[in-house]
């Protein structure tokens, strides 16, 4: 399914950081939405800032407009404040993009587990993210760091317990 760009994407000023405060607020909200939707669509969990500049999200070749490095950083900072982004390094060259927050993933995973009557079973992390049984689930292909965080969220809620096994980690659901 091809990605549906929002109307702002073909609107040239969208790629210029707006001087008017209220307009800028709307603009940044739209950018945050766009980045998250795009990452969700492409199942991207990390972004490299340098590469991002050339990615279609920030660079619309059709209208010859691209977001400046400075503006990209502003958008990323907004996402960070909203809890959807985390920097992987001090220099802010790579970041984790959480188009779904760990709690939300945890909920989805738990729903699948209970729907299939598998509460009290033990799973390896691999089974959850890459197993045949989960192929049709949204969390299939979830990267390990994200999966772990989601399970940690469930753990805090008392719905799961992460266990260390011989060859890696596993989880038991309650």
């Amino acid at each position, binding site marked *: 399914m091809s990605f549906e760009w*929002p*109307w702002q994407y073909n*609107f*040239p000023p969208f790629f210029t950081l707006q001087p008017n405060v209220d307009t800028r607020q709307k*603009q940044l909200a739209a950018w945050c*939405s766009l980045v998250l939707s795009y990452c969700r669509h492409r199942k991207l969990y990390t972004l490299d800032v340098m590469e991002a500049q050339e990615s279609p999200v920030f660079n619309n070749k059709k209208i010859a*407009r691209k977001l400046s490095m400075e503006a990209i950083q502003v958008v990323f900072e907004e996402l960070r404040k909203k809890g959807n982004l985390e920097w992987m390094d001090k220099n802010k060259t790579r970041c984790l993009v959480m188009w779904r927050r760990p709690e939300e993933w945890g909920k989805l995973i738990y729903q699948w587990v209970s729907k299939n009557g598998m509460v009290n079973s033990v799973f390896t992390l691999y089974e959850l993210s890459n197993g045949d049984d989960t192929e049709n689930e949204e969390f299939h292909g979830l990267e390990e760091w994200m999966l772990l965080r989601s399970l940690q969220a469930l753990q805090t809620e008392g719905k799961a317990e992460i266990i260390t096994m011989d060859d890696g980690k596993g989880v038991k659901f309650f």
Partner: protein
Amino acid sequence: MHRRGVGAGAIAKKKLAEAKYRERGTVLAEDQIAQMSKQLETFKTHLEEFASKHKQEIRKNSQFRVQFQEMCATIGVDPLASGKGFWSEMLGVGDFYYELGVQIIEVCLALKHRNGGLITLDELHQRVLKGRGKFAQDVSQDDLVRAIKKLKAMGNGFGMIPVGGSYLVQSVPAELNMDHTVVLQLAEKKGYVTVMEIKDSLKWERERACHVLDHLLKEGLAWLDSQADGEPQYWLPALFSELSSRDVTPEEANQMTP
């Protein structure tokens, strides 16, 4: 030849003559007015008869409605006058425009965050029709214009700016003076405008052009594009043609600042 008197006596005489003329004029005018009132009454009665006879058509047919409205206007009858009375009760015409007014407000509110409260009459028309569905009464642009005029009279912050043969409908009380209006008209062709273009077309000083553009930015009616070839361009979402076909997505709805 006697010299015309300019003393106090002459002035008094003049005043008396003027008073006499005025009185005569008043008498004449009163006569005429009485005659005209009678004629108007006749017109009104005929119009009322006409209206009841063609009630259905007036409701269904927007072309007919235009002509009917124009007839009313020529004798100073306003079928949209609020409150009870022959017109609103007989035809329910008042209801039709009242409801249309509400619809217009809804459409404008829903899109305000995108276009700052400025929308083309075309887009407004499209969206109102869409909202009414297939089996609803036909609504013409003339209907919209009348409904908007009513809204304006009620002090809802509505206004209409003539651009490129049609109108831009303003639904927020942003202060737009003649300078702003004329720049909007200039921007209508391409959806954007630059300082140079304003200076060339309108022969203004740079400062005046910048002042207007700054105001449009401030009111959220224009966005700045600094990556254009040459100088910065000021784009108006209201004139961005691609916008008119797009619905408000759930994501966009979530972004709307109250």
